[in-house]
């Protein structure tokens, strides 16, 4: 009886848990089939997510980068940024729609320019570390073992074979074709590992939900909780 009294949504905390449980069960009802219960909560989810983003992603940024510099710090030149950005909203107009492309062009151009920086900071160090792998034991790298050399050779061989597979500039024949096939097999190992990791990540989420239902809602203490 005590369990049942505690189970009911009689306190604000229990009510909050019940709301979470109803949301979870509504989403899981899709596993049976598409139904109004699921559709209701699906639309609620979209509405809540869109509404939430306005706080931290719109108001916060506009206040921090536009309102505060102008009204609090007095940097008046920022005043032109929002009117310029507002050109985006002409996208819905048939007559003035092209004006929104000026702002879109700004974003695209800046993203392209920033990608040069990203390429350099993200990919070049990787290339550098790949090329610096020692492939033989010498006095320059005394800590390297035979196994390390084998692993480094394997690393380079896999990298080259997978890159060969992705080379489409000419017809692959002979040794190149065989290397590309080997590259495809290695690629399958990589994709298998990604798939395995993805499955486990999703399973972790599912376990989290089941734990919430059992531990928080039904109050069945599991795992020493």
């Amino acid at each position: 009886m005590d369990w049942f009294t505690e189970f009911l949504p009689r306190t604000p905390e229990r009510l909050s848990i019940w709301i979470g449980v109803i949301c979870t069960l509504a989403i899981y009802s899709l596993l049976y089939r598409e139904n109004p219960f699921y559709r209701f909560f699906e639309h609620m989810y979209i509405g809540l997510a869109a509404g939430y983003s306005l706080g931290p992603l719109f108001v916060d940024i506009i206040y921090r980068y536009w309102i505060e510099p102008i009204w609090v710090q007095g940097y008046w030149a920022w005043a032109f940024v929002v009117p310029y950005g507002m050109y985006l909203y002409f996208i819905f107009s048939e007559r003035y729609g092209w004006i929104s492309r000026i702002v879109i062009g700004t974003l695209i151009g800046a993203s392209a320019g920033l990608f040069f920086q990203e390429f350099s900071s993200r990919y070049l160090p990787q290339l550098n570390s790949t090329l610096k792998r020692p492939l033989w034991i010498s006095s320059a790298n005394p800590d390297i073992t035979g196994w390390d050399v084998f692993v480094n050779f394997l690393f380079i061989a896999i990298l080259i074979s997978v890159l060969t597979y992705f080379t489409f500039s000419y017809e692959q024949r002979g040794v190149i074709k065989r290397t590309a096939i080997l590259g495809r097999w290695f690629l399958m190992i990589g994709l298998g590992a990604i798939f395995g990791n993805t499955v486990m990540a999703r399973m972790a989420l599912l376990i989290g939900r089941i734990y919430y239902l059992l531990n928080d809602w039904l109050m069945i203490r599991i795992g020493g909780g």
Partner: protein
Amino acid sequence: MTPLTHLIAQSIWRLPETLSKDQRYLYASLIVLGAFVLVLGLIPVLQTLPPRGRRAVIVTVTFLAGLFFAAEFFLPVDWRSIFPKDDPTRNFLTPAIQPAQNVLQIIGALALGLGTYGLVRLHLRNVVQKRTQWGYSVVLLVAFVTMATFSIWNTLAEKELVKKTPFVERGFSILFDFTLVQLDAAMFSLIAFYIFSAAYRAFRIRSVEASILMFTAMVVMIGVVPLGAYISYTLLGLPQGPAPADADLWTRILHSAGLPTIANWVLTTLNAPVQRAIEFGVGIGGLAMAIRLWLSLERGVT
């Protein structure tokens, strides 16, 4: 100081500090109003441009926006040969990088607002025109308005611009922690069920590639969870973790052939170069695409 550094540091960009708070607010508001009038007043002028001229404006803006970030990155850091008094740790464009990124943040926020506006517009139309299943659009709009109110109020309260009342705190907590977060977790965990049917399709052994994919995925899936250690060590009566220093050769081999060890080796030795090769492909492809976008060679974008 270089011309640009000098220009940014100039006090002309800032309202005089001698102004009182009220005066600053008034002048700032008038300048913002003027900026709106000026920028929106440009529209009739822009509208007079012929199609070629419009495209030229877009292409030029795109190019200049990209050029700024590219030039800042590619230009030599030490610029003292031309500007002797320059700071040797940065080039003359570097001081403008942070303001430029802030501009992008603001435009990005406005783009988010545009997406939200599009969503609300679509669902308002559904309701007004009473299209099929318009009731769900009502649910979406009510959820949106309620959450937007609490989210904005909460954000402003965190900045101490409005008072954070217990009503706002409790309402935001119910909407965010006990509804949105729960829906989010449930929605993404739902994929766990569907991934099994995807796994069935992927793992049907029809070729060498499918077999390798299945074998690797199985090893990783079992190896990274306690089940792998249970099968490899507990069932065989071996201690978990690395083989003891005084272990015989057979025990060492068994330890090395344990599923967790193999899964870890697959992930670090075989998977890492594959990921790096994919990354290189993505990077080179991205670079080519960035150049095409920057120079407006990509059709349909600008």
